[in-house]
């Protein structure tokens, strides 16, 4: 159901200027790498196209114009691809869109153009320099001895792999610009189970008293169990849940709350709906009085 799984993922709460605390899910390193790889692919592809055009133009005698065009366009692609997209689209590049990521400002303010520029300038240090060192080691520090080159490379690797060393997956650019990459939030609003009316095709709802719960019966479970039940009921609505599981759950609840034996064989789904509604009402009332019960007793 809810596309945001708040479990296990690292949450970074942003305080918006309105004073609301918003939990964002920090983008995992793998997603970041995929996004970067996709963008890199676009850049390399663009560069190849531009140089092919330049070659083509030289065959018709416009070599100088073509080559300078290719030089400058290639430069812009390599250095301003990320900047342009992240300013223009508000923190999303095509690769990030594919992987569902976004850049936001860590302090909750707007993502400014200078922050975008700062975070992308650091790619020189994080990516281009180590790659250069890898591909053409003799171009880096030409006079240094072998161990010196090795040392320099290890040192650069620290910057390249920076996101792996901190929980918020900040790379050097994020550190300098005060930004953070998060998963773009997504969630679908489903029907409120507590406000649900029985579908018209179903038999008329049983009389109220059949599903009357006493205070003691509603005093057993806590918020966690309520929300697990909510999840099950939503999945039952989707048809992704086996009905037999609901039967088991109903049995367990009935045993736990000491449901009267004479009404034991009520239809399962209406019983669970009614229990959910009553339980939520009870817990929400307690919450209004300042008592949050997170889990069941015992």
């Amino acid at each position: 159901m809810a596309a945001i799984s708040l479990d296990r993922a690292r949450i970074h709460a942003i305080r918006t200027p309105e004073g609301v605390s918003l939990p964002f899910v920090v983008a995992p390193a793998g997603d970041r790498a995929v996004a970067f790889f996709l963008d890199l692919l676009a850049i390399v592809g663009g560069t190849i196209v531009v140089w092919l055009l330049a070659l083509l133009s030289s065959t018709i005698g416009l070599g100088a114009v073509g080559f300078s065009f290719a030089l400058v366009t290639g430069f812009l692609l390599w250095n301003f691809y990320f900047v342009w997209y992240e300013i223009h689209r508000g923190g999303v590049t095509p690769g990030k869109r594919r992987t569902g990521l976004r850049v936001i400002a860590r302090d909750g303010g707007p993502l400014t153009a200078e922050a975008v520029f700062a975070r992308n300038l650091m790619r020189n240090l994080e990516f281009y320099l180590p790659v250069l060192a890898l591909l053409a080691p003799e171009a880096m520090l030409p006079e240094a001895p072998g161990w010196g080159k090795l040392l320099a490379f290890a040192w650069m690797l620290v910057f390249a792999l920076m996101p792996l060393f901190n929980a918020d997956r900040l790379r050097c650019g994020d550190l300098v610009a005060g930004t953070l990459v998060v998963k773009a939030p997504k969630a679908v609003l489903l029907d409120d189970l507590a406000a649900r009316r029985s579908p018209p095709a179903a038999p008329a709802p049983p009389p109220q008293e059949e599903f009357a719960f006493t205070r003691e019966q509603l005093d057993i479970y806590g918020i966690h169990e309520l929300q697990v039940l909510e999840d099950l009921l939503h999945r039952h609505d989707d048809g992704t849940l086996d009905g037999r599981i609901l039967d088991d759950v109903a049995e367990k609840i009935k045993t736990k709350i000491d449901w009267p034996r004479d009404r034991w064989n009520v239809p399962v789904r209406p019983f669970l709906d009614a229990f959910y509604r009553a339980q939520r009402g009870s817990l929400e009332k307690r919450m209004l009085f300042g008592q949050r019960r997170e889990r069941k007793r015992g």
Partner: protein
Amino acid sequence: MSDFILKSAQFRKEREQAWRELEGLLARVEKDGLRALSAEELNRLPVLYRSAASSLAVATAISLDKNLLDYLTALVGRAYICVYGAKRRVGEAVSRFFLIDFPWVVRRYLAFVAVSLVLVSAGVFTGYQQTTSDPERYYSFVGGMAQGRTPDASTKELREFLYHRGEGDLPVFASFLFTHNSKVGMLCFALGFVAGVPVVYLLFATGLMLGAMVALYASRGLGAEFWAWVLPHGVTEIGALCLCGAAGMVLGISLVFPGRHTRLHNLALHGRDVALLAFGAVAMFLVAGAIEGFFRQLVQDVTVRWLVASFSLAFWIWYFAAVGREAGRRHGRDLAR
């Protein structure tokens, strides 16, 4: 059955319409950007955002409907990104940058720019001294950039280099210069992250190279002509290099001496501002590349070269000293900040 409806369900029923409306707007903005909205919808967006944010605050207090809470959290998150994500269009950002932010940030970090300039000058001075006393040192200072301009070359050859007239490949030359210098400048900024030490070295080494060349040309009585050759673009180029150097130094210093803030916070605080320096420097490199690639190759007259050099110096001084002071104050870009 109306008395059986929960408060939280009632709350949802009353607000749901507004959430759905916001959701619809967001879906369109995320797909096509802000221009997908009409003026009226654009006005609605922040209103709806704020009401959704308040809904979220209320819902966390009164509702236990997990799906609703997840939905609202995500909705407000998306709206927050839309409202605060991109503040300006690219064109607007660029014009604001040149009219306000760039001169402001140079004034703000003027001390660091001055230190960079001193470093380059010290490099020039040292390079000149050392090469004059021992011409062999020229090779270690200039290295691969010599392109035949070595102490072994005849005066005539050296002279020819100053008045070399490039032919059809001028645009290629100019764009090569621009991209090469910009890369060096941006690297300078990025290296600031490494506590700024490589930046100092880079600035000084550039100075050494220039000083060594000056010494070589001066030894053949071509000193003034060499300056006339180098300064028309050199003023802009060295200025840009100093800005990048200043940016790198600020980064390094804010990392090593964070002052009242945490290192992370202080770095972010200065990082954004000095990125402006680096961006401005790229623009200056573009200008310098054009002067070097076209003007220097096409204009041979020493007087004109001197004129252009002095004009560009006067221009940059005026630009950094005067532009954007008024407008900057209006936009909170005040030096007293």
